């Protein structure tokens, strides 16, 4: 009996290791990196606006949170899929949404917002991606949830769909004082 256990131990360890590797291989969300900025104040930025009478968009222009700040581009396919959802979030849930355009063409952005509607209070033009680098953005769209103290409390990488909104973002915004 005692010997059996000793012989079986390596197999048990191997099995556990394989199970762990299989889990990481098939189930881990490796593309979704956790941002080191969570819990930190939103880094300051200073951008020219697009599609607004105001000239400059900086962190001082944000209303008191909770709010969403999304980094996107017209050349980004998932941003196109996400756009209607952002319109819905503004219209039905009245969440303030701001945006930063990552390396985009101002004219294309204007045409886009004219045709599809503009869900954003202000949009800043991050021509060479410096602000995006300060935010640790590695793929558009990325959406940051900012609280009333102007701290980043969450980052979502990828498009926002109904599921992400209902399961993650909306509860988080409510918990942080979103008035219904």
């Amino acid at each position, binding site marked *: 009996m005692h010997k059996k256990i000793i012989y079986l131990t390596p197999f048990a360890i191997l099995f556990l290791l394989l199970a762990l590797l299989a889990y990481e291989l098939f189930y881990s969300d*490796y*593309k979704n*990196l956790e*941002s*080191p900025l969570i819990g930190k104040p939103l880094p300051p930025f200073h951008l020219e606006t697009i599609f607004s009478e105001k000239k400059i968009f900086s962190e001082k222009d944000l209303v008191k949170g909770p709010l969403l700040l999304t980094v996107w581009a017209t050349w980004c396919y998932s941003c196109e899929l996400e756009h209607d959802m952002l319109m819905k979030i503004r219209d039905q849930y009245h969440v303030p949404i701001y945006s930063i355009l990552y390396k985009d063409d101002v004219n294309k952005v204007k045409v886009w917002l004219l045709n599809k509607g503009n869900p954003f209070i202000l949009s800043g033009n991050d021509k060479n991606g410096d602000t995006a*680098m300060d935010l640790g953005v*590695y793929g558009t769209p990325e959406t940051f949830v900012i609280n009333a103290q102007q701290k980043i409390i969450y980052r979502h990488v990828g498009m926002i769909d109904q599921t992400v909104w209902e399961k993650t973002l909306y509860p988080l915004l409510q918990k942080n004082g979103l008035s219904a």
Partner: protein
Amino acid sequence: MRTWVGFLLLIWFSNIWAQDIYPFASNQDAKHFTALTQEVRCVVCQNQTIADSNAPLALDLRKKIHAMLLANKTDAEIKSYLVERYGEFILFQPAFNKLTLILWLFPFLAIGIIILYFSAKLTKR
């Protein structure tokens, strides 16, 4: 003869272009830059270094590191700049700290346990 001259000129020009992308004052600085960019992960294409990758973000990070080196920033400053924004994951060789404690100590712990186990067995005999 003419083709030969053309060929040599081509080599000469391509050499100029090859050196022009990230200019440094000395060869040593250029080597330093290459070594440093090979330690930084391209977070978009996760198993490539930013030195290898052609992803736009890798290009931006190379530019940023180049600018920081020209501004006489140290390696530690550059690395902490990157980690503050993209997380520990961006470095291929993670720093030794609270977060990475288990990662670094686990192999030694495992070896230690195995040695203890076998030495206990031997003394029993």
